[in-house]
């Protein structure tokens, strides 16, 4: 039987990317700076967010969405800083996608929210393909998980805008080689901004707050996170 070829050139992520674009436009209109957080499980996303929310909540409207396979524990932790927290439980799905964000935000008014943080499911592989409409993606890497994480997961590090090295209070005990870690991040994502913090002691958080506040002064962008996401 003979066959013929039909050209289609259709982006596999088109549905997600269209939704992400609509979300990004909405965030821009509301002037909300939206930041996604990705890391391995246990690298300290929730602990970092607890500190960030508590620090910003005094002067700014803040909100957070937090994704996990199961439990509402992380949302409960974040609610100590702000009531504007919603847990997204994904069941067996290893990443958040734009439709989950859209659903979670139903009924939310973002008018007075300056910062919305989206904590992804702990996973350094799957979230990289899904644009959530965020303006910046932070990738976290803890001092206890080795310097070579960026080399092992280049896709997610390359698709992120900022790297946060967490648990710096444990760096010495873990014999963490900071210079190597920084070099590896630079190798995978040249020019990436890097912060070194401890959510336990508060070390390095001042610079993070300065960086975040500086984002508010910038005009909100509707540019997609990744080149390929452009439709």
């Amino acid at each position, binding site marked *: 039987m003979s*066959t013929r070829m039909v050209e289609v050139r259709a*982006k596999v992520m088109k549905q997600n990317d269209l939704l992400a674009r609509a979300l990004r436009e909405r965030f821009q209109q509301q002037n909300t700076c939206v930041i996604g957080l990705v890391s391995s499980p246990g690298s300290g996303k929730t602990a970092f967010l607890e500190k960030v929310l508590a620090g910003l909540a005094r002067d700014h409207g803040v909100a957070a969405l937090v994704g996990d396979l199961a439990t509402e524990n992380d949302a409960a932790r974040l609610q100590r800083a702000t009531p504007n927290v919603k847990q997204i439980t994904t069941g067996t799905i290893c*990443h958040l996608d734009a439709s989950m964000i859209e659903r979670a935000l139903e009924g939310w008014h973002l008018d007075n929210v300056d910062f919305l943080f989206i904590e992804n499911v702990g996973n350094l592989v*799957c979230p990289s393909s899904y644009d959530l409409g965020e303006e910046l993606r932070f990738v976290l890497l803890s001092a206890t998980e080795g310097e070579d994480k960026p080399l092992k997961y280049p*896709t997610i590090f390359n698709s992120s805008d900022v790297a946060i090295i967490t648990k710096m209070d444990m760096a010495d005990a873990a014999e963490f080689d900071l210079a190597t870690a920084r070099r590896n991040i630079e190798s995978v994502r*040249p020019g990436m901004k890097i912060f070194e913090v401890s959510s336990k002691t508060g070390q390095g958080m001042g610079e993070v707050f300065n960086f975040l506040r500086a984002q508010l002064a910038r005009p909100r962008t509707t540019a997609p996170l990744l*080149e390929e996401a452009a439709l």
Partner: protein
Amino acid sequence: MHELSIAISMIDQIAEESASRGGLDVEAVHLRLGVFAGVDKNALLFAYELACEGTPLQGSRLIIETVPLLVYCPVCRQERTPPSVYQICCPECLAPTPEILTGREMEVASLEVAA
């Protein structure tokens, strides 16, 4: 393992393309997959077969063309292939480059249909 989600998105996408062309009897799907797309080729091949079951695409073949990583070197002013996916720099002058030209693609390029 998000390859199953990706495969399902792909099948939805193909169904839409097929419908807009009056219904196609698809025998093979040609996918362009960048090495930086965050998707494992073998896992996707496996997931595709699973996800096709019970759909009009059941029994169709998935043919994946790998799209290499290409960057633009601002020093040499040329397209270059970096030494590896974790060394995003120019292989000639070693200048780091944040500008990725290809490698993130995940695109159904064409469909092979019964004539």
